[in-house]
């Protein structure tokens, strides 16, 4: 860890440093990934990573945390998530018990007591702000949350400061490295995007994908890995309902190893293609267009 000119601690020395250290923890970063991670840290801005499922968005956050020995705090978004799940919530049940147990006490005293640390349930956003150790905050699948939650994120990610009316304002002692992911099922608001650096993470090029396979499934012979990546590339060009992602490439490689296959002939492809293509219509389309029948 280092400090920049303004005395803020920074995580990486250079873009190349990002590449090396992420590789050390098993994440093979493209130039785009390494550059944006470096800049997000240097400029102190959240990084919004958008892209199809399974290209390594979540994994990137994990890798940055591991590479920098930071704790990973994850906010998994879903439809209907609200402030109580994302930021904090009072433990109502416990508060009610406390109120009942305090019959006869002054109300003011009870109230102060009931709204104290003991009854506070911190959720990921508040957790990340209060941590004193190095932290990577991952807001995963942001597009699944309702638009109102974006307002909350905007507030929190702006100055990493939260006001709990009963407790006062809590400010982060150090800004967590923040990564938001989105599958682009909807456009996030312009305001939120403007707060962030933007990275569109797409399928890796063939060379990088071969290296990912080699590092994740080292048992797979090199020639086979190359062939597999080539077929995956062609499948991605087919306009399928769900194009195979890096996770499918890895699953396929693992399957071949598990089946003990050492060549990828037509029978092997037929037998294992279900690992790669998840929809029946895609299977039908790929088989007919690639003359696998």
């Amino acid at each position, binding site marked *: 860890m280092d400090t920049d000119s303004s005395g803020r601690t920074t995580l990486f020395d*250079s*873009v190349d440093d990002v590449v090396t250290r992420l590789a050390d923890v098993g994440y093979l970063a493209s*130039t*785009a990934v*390494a*550059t*944006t991670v470096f*800049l997000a840290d*240097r*400029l102190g*801005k959240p*990084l919004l990573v*958008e*892209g199809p499922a399974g290209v390594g968005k979540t994994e990137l956050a994990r890798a940055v945390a591991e590479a920098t020995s930071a704790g990973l705090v994850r906010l998994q978004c879903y*439809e*209907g998530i609200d402030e109580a799940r994302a930021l904090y*919530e*009072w433990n*109502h049940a416990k*508060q009610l018990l406390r*109120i009942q147990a305090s019959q006869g006490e002054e*109300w003011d005293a*009870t*109230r102060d007591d*009931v709204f104290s640390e003991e009854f506070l349930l911190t959720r990921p956003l508040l957790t990340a702000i209060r941590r004193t150790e190095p932290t990577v905050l991952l807001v995963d699948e942001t597009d699944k949350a*309702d638009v109102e939650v974006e307002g909350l994120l905007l507030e929190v990610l702006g100055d990493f400061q939260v006001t709990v009316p009963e407790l006062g304002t809590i400010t982060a002692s150090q800004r967590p490295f923040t990564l938001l992911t989105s599958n*682009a*099922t*909807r*456009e996030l608001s312009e305001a939120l995007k*403007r707060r962030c*650096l*933007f*990275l*569109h993470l797409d399928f890796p090029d*063939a*060379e990088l994908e071969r290296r990912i396979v080699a590092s994740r499934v080292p048992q797979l012979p090199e*020639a086979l890995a190359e*062939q597999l990546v*080539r*077929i995956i*590339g*062609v499948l991605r*060009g087919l*306009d399928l*309902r769900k194009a195979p992602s890096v996770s499918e490439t890895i699953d396929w490689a693992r399957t071949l190893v598990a089946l003990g296959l050492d*060549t*990828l*002939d*037509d029978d092997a*492809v037929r037998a294992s293609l279900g690992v790669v293509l998840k*929809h*029946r*219509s*895609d299977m039908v*389309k790929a088989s007919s*267009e*690639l*003359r*696998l029948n």
Partner: protein
Amino acid sequence: MADTPARGLPAHLVDFVQALRRHHVDVGPGETVDAAAVMAELDLLRREQLREGLAAALLRRSGQRQTFDALFDLWFPLGQGAALGEVALPYAEDGSVDVDALRDLLAQLLADGDTAALTELARAVVDGLGAISVGNGNGSGAGGSGTGKDGAAGTPSGFSSYQALNSVRPETLLARVLADLRSRGEGGEAESPFAEEVARRQTRARIAEFRRMVQSETARRGSEIRGREAAARTGVRRQAEQTDFLSAGADTLADLRRRVAPLGRHLATRLAARRRRAHRGAIDMRRTLRRSMSTGGVPVNLVHRRPRPGRPELVLLCDVSGSVAGFSHFTMMLVQALREQFSRIRIFCFVDGCVEVTDLFTPGADLGDVLTEVHSRPGLVAWSGHSDYGRAFDRFAERWPDAVTDRTSLLVLGDARTNHQDPALGVLSGVVARARHAHWLNPEPEKQWGTGDSAAREYGRIMPMHECRTAAQLAGVVGGLLPV
């Protein structure tokens, strides 16, 4: 950067940002400031890092990337002049380019899939074969340090990718590359039709990639002569989301599709979210307790969350006639996205007849197939096969009188070109009067509405009509349509 003018980096960056804006990438002042900060943090000689860093600061959507890359190549060019690498053109005895040897070399690099070498070859090809009408003057003024084999040749007056590619004809190398790959016998797979097909498609993709390399190199060289502004005007493709649905070429189609799919899902998730949220009439514990503070902590007034509105229903009426062929494919994508989220949606297609096609949109159905099926449905074409909105609306109102109720949002998609037939305004008014909301999406530019056989103005008086020519406009309309 080699090509930074004397006014310095900040001015150059502002120039670049303005070029992006001219190409409909709206970059705000905040983004420009971020971009300047990015330039301060990066090693400017590492061009790909600079490219990614600027993209991260300036772009907000993936659809803008192609435009960005093309402009980046002009504003932050690789170098000046030929900027040749290690891969050189083969020359014949007489000093002319040996085209046969060149094609051999290209075939070999395509078979190897050596991207770096192909890039260098593309540069050499443009330099050696793309220069047009070798002039005599010192026309460029910007050039200077061209490293090409100048000697006999003077300064070219321009570069043409057509000319360069026309002598190399990379497409015609397909069979050769495939034969080469086969003879390398990559694992005995060479025989199977599947292996052939994979190799063919991969090779085609590489050839297309090489063509793109030649084109962008041509733009770079051309910009040195004509100025980058001129090169940007003619050489940079429009973004997918700004492309007209009706005139989308094959190359932008795939792009557009990528852009429309999330939009469909966007519409669907927003509608779905509204619907589901409406079901949540539960007690709001936090607000109940806060409120209970006034009654000494006894929760007297239960605070409920929002009440539920009625369940929305959607009816889609889609023109699938020839005049909107480009549009209807995107209609289908939108419809599919909605279909997957809603049980209460009914889909009708029309030309001069009208058919219900709700059943065709099964989850995972291939949209190309669906469109084919739609067109083979008996009843879609009742008469001439040219659109007749009046007849189609008549048929719809008569055959499915209960489809539209006071809970229904009605969406009509079409160009309102009636082939001079009776538009049946009364019939449509009747349907619209029953609906809860009604909107019309028209893929034609608004200034053409009402011209020729367009009944857009008349229909527009019955229900709001929105120009919807591009994915960007569609996004705007989708935003404005809600809540359904």
